[in-house]
């Protein structure tokens, strides 16, 4: 059975299809070489794929099932909504004593929202009361969507922190520096405080006139995930390097990351490396989700590259009768001199080496073990993730701080995001151009989440009214702010390659920073997403 499908999880999907149709996974080939985007809705075996397979088996002929936009936006999954209640107890001295966050997740007939629990990881408090509920309705099922639950949690928590700072007469970054012990975010706060953008922040509610400017800050936390059951192959074919694994590129740039990682090991250019992916005939690759692909595959690629170099040194050493042959970053050293890697490759026979992801070196990390301090729930979650999803949680959290500047038109109700500065700490950046692209996308998506995106259902029969891009508003190029990015490349020395994923991280706090900026500009705090003109005008009038 060969299935061409737009998926974030080719390898996992072949297993699920095999289970559903009683086939050994080896007899199910899933091909997803180019995937336009995923964001979370393409993680599992979905009905359209089941329909295509069922029909194809019955007809003994290829069957294609394609949803048009209306169908796709009706049943293809969506970012679930939620209603959140947040409360904080702040001591007279300005420390956080208790935090309460209750979330009613609204994912239609789907369950499993985990929103409030994410608040556990940012600010330590003596007491925490974090509860997640699912409210089940007749609406189609929601799906995970970039940082599932995270932007919602940040919208509530980070606006509450902002409100606390406002009521204490404190600077919102100074307050976070006191409350947030995360070492990399501490560096990001120091960076943010020095920004001209932040230093030009007006006093809250002091702006007058039709157009009012405001600046807001918000922080985010994400876990360092990796997948435990993956493998990757680095090889030489016709004197060209290749790297192969059944990961899929959903626009996050894992193709470029792999090409760059292997090329760097051999002193070559990314264009000198063929990347083969998106096909389950290759070594088992990870799912693209939870920001795990780079953290999973970069260490494996580095290890496989070293194995290939050693084998190449051995084989060339024997073939060319080199004495004392051994290799390092530069090439193959021997008693008679050095064969640089490009020269070694030019005369290399075909060969390949595989590697699984090597374990981290905890002696190189000062971070506590994963989910330390989260008690039994954290421990149980870690175990369940690892057993059921093959998803490991490593040491150290990734962190982000976003600073947004808005201009609010108090006459027409429009909020424009003028500038956003994003500071991200996820260790060493594997591919700077791709990381920038990823993080700009996260910001623009956050702008859409804060200001435009809303799924509207008919209140009587639940049909999706926003089933096209005229009615479902996403940011256009004129809505994209000026973006500045800053990476703190520390904290993950225990991971081969020194870095982990930053996809989810780059969008989590953006909407909250915009909400805080609107409050700074107008003195009115937006509670509902998105900040539509009608809501803003009603808020300003009240």
């Amino acid at each position, binding site marked *: 059975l060969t299935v061409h499908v737009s998926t974030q999880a080719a390898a996992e999907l072949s297993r699920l299809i095999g289970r559903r149709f009683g086939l050994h996974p080896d007899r199910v080939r899933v091909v997803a070489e180019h995937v336009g985007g995923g964001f979370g809705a393409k993680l599992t075996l979905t009905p359209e794929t089941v329909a295509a397979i069922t029909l194809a088996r019955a007809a003994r002929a290829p069957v294609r099932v394609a949803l*048009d936009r*209306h169908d796709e936006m009706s049943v293809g999954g969506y970012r679930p909504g939620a209603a959140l209640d947040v409360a904080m107890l702040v001591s007279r001295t300005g420390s956080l004593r208790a935090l309460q966050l209750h979330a009613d997740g609204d994912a239609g007939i789907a369950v499993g929202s985990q929103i409030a629990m994410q608040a556990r990881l940012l600010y330590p408090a003596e007491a925490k009361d974090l509860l997640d509920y699912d409210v089940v309705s007749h609406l189609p099922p929601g799906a995970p969507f970039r940082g599932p639950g995270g932007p919602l949690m940040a919208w509530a928590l980070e606006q509450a922190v902002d409100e606390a700072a406002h009521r204490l007469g404190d600077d919102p970054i100074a307050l976070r520096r006191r409350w947030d012990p995360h070492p990399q975010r501490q560096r990001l706060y120091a960076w943010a405080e020095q920004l001209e953008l932040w230093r030009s922040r007006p006093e809250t509610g002091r702006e007058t006139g039709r157009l009012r400017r405001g600046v807001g800050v918000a922080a985010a936390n994400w876990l360092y995930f990796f997948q435990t059951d993956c493998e990757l192959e680095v090889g030489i074919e016709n004197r060209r390097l290749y790297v192969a694994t059944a990961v899929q590129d959903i626009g996050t740039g894992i193709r470029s990351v792999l090409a760059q990682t292997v090329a760097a090991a051999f002193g070559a250019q990314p264009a000198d490396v063929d990347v083969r992916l998106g096909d389950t005939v290759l070594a088992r690759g990870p799912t693209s989700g939870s920001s795990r692909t780079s953290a999973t595959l970069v260490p494996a690629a580095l290890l496989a590259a070293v194995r290939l170099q050693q084998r190449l040194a051995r084989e060339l050493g024997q073939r060319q009768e080199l004495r004392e042959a051994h290799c390092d970053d530069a090439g193959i050293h021997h008693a008679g001199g050095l064969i640089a890697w490009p020269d070694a490759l030019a005369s290399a026979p075909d060969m390949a080496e595989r590697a699984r992801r090597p374990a981290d070196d905890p002696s190189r990390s000062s971070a506590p073990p994963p989910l330390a301090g989260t008690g039994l729930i954290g421990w149980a979650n870690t175990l369940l993730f690892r057993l059921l999803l093959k998803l490991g949680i490593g040491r150290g959290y990734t962190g982000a701080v976003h600073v947004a500047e808005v201009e609010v038109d108090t*006459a*027409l*109700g*429009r909020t*424009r995001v003028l500038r956003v500065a994003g500071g991200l700490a996820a260790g060493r950046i594997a591919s700077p151009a791709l990381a920038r692209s990823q993080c700009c996308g996260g910001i623009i998506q956050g702008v859409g989440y804060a*200001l*435009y995106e809303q799924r*509207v*259902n*008919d*209140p*009587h029969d639940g*049909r999706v*009214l*926003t*089933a*096209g891009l*005229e*009615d479902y*508003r996403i*940011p*256009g190029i*004129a*809505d994209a702010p000026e973006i500045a990015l800053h990476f703190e490349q520390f904290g993950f020395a225990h991971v081969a390659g020194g870095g982990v994923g930053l996809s989810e991280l780059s969008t989590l706090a953006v909407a909250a920073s915009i909400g805080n900026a609107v409050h700074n500009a107008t003195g009115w705090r937006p509670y509902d997403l*998105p900040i*539509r*003109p*009608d809501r803003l*005008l*009603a808020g300003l*009038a009240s």
Partner: protein
Amino acid sequence: VSAGPENLDAAAALAGEYRAGGTDLQHRLRRRISSGPPIDLAAVPDLHGIGADETGAVRIGALTTIAALATEPKLAAYPALAQAAAALATPQIRAVGTLGGNLLQRNRCWYFRDPDTACFRKGGPSCPARDGNHLYHACFDRGPCIAVHPSTLAMTLLTYDATVEIAGRPARPVQDLYGDGSDPHRDHQLGAGEILTAVRMPAPMPNERAGYVRATSRALAEWPLVEAVVRLRIADGAIASAGVGLGGVAPVPLRCRAVEAALTGRPPSESVFAQAAALAAADARPLPMTGYKVGLIASTIVAALERAAQGWSSTARG
């Protein structure tokens, strides 16, 4: 689309739906809201071209693109038309969308555009928006259907007292294309086989100042919550004449005569603008979810007036 008819008589004899730029029709065909077949009018020569007569009036062929309305030097004396045309939709749509198509497009109600929902405009028995979600619908409740009229150009041409040519008939005022909004079954009044061939603009008003503003959540490319177009002539420190059009709020494009009367003869000042604009929503009858539009109408008109008066310099004032 196969080759279309080459003259008006041939076009009028065909059954189907006329296709101008196709930006609306193609979408409705895909969504099964038009049964077609599309009749492409591009090859009909009478529908093209822009020309002035000896009185200074200008005839604009119905297939003139929206982009041309925004940039055509022959229309430079109609700056409100140029501003409104430049502000609607996207560059791609303006490049292929046409004047006639814009005037005769179908409404954008999300229930109308849903192939599986019945509504008055599709021959159904009721309006599902009325007790459904009508956040983007009318705040002038004029009839059983509460969709707002989508044509920015219709609202603009109303302020110019423009007329429209229908093939084989005498020219008639733009508002006759739309009626009063009480008929829930129609977005325009043309019947089968009737073809809008051109718009006639009266001779331009000298020194016209123009302002077009649409209230939207995004910067561009969004249907207006409220839109307003303003034409002003300012002489001797006072507004000598005013035209104010209003869109996004009623099943038909509106002209705000009361606002115009309140502006005329007064100086173009902030307080005059605010007092006059406040009259625009006097007849508004908002629905439960469209109350916000009532206040937005005045703000949008004031913003358009300010844009029109911009550059009316302090020297002129003094």
